[in-house]
């Protein structure tokens, strides 16, 4: 049974092998190939440019994001420093003035 089916398949392949007569291309075959090659070349030039541009946009967007994040962090930390600094400065200045004044006052009274 298996052999019969195998033989049937062989016969089918053999019969079909003979049905495919020699076919030839149209006269436009080679010019069409060159047209496609030129098209590929054109796309071959445009495509890397497009990829490059897309990559550039991606890199630029990432750079802007990173820059913005760094700036916002540094601004945040510097503004915090400024806030803290001004508060501490204010306190120091106050206490320094008071302390100095106090020291000065003590110095003057002791004299």
């Amino acid at each position, binding site marked *: 049974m298996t052999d019969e089916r*195998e033989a049937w398949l062989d016969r089918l*392949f053999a019969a079909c*092998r003979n049905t*495919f007569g*020699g*076919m030839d291309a149209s006269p436009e075959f080679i010019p069409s*190939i060159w047209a*496609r090659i030129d098209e*590929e070349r054109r796309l071959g030039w445009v495509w890397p440019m497009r990829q490059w541009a897309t990559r550039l946009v991606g890199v630029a967007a990432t750079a802007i994001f990173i820059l913005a994040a760094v700036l916002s962090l540094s601004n945040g930390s510097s503004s915090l420093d400024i806030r803290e600094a001004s508060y501490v400065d204010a306190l120091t200045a106050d206490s320094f003035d008071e302390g100095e004044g106090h020291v000065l006052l003590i110095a003057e009274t002791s004299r």
Partner: protein
Amino acid sequence: MLVEASLIKRAQSGDASAFNEIVRAYRKRILGTIFRLISRPEDVEDVAQDVFVRLYFSLDQLRAPEVFEPWLYRLTVNAAYDYLRKRRRSADVRMADLSEEQLSLADAAAGAKESAKQEDQKQLRETLDVLMDQVSEDDRILLGLKELQGLSLRALSEVYSVSENVLKVRLFRARKRVLKAYDRLKKRNEI
């Protein structure tokens, strides 16, 4: 080989007339191979052009002109494979195309009566097409190259870059799958 190694080298160096000579030399063989692999006469020329475009852009990758033929077969197989996959993806659209094509074929057949032999051959091809549509693109191409194109195991092993024993196993399994598809279709009276 159908062309001299020197011609391939000239084409590799960018000589357009050498490339045209290669196309002229191999055009019939490539058309025949593609016809056997895809069984769609209306698309054969398009796929063959695709093969030669691929050839043009990859000629510089060919190291030795002696392996040009298996290498060209590999390009042909790849182009046929891509075509078959695309066709499978757009199966619904193709069905619509086919029905139109069948109508036009029927019109043509009404004008010129086909001989009984041609009719038999057409039926055989249709049977084979139906069977081949049931198996994977890999099986279809392998069987097409071996059973229809008549490539030897040695030639096939150069195309596929595998040993002849591996190919024997693959061919055996592909044939089994075709027969299984035949049984399935016959059970459903579709063949």
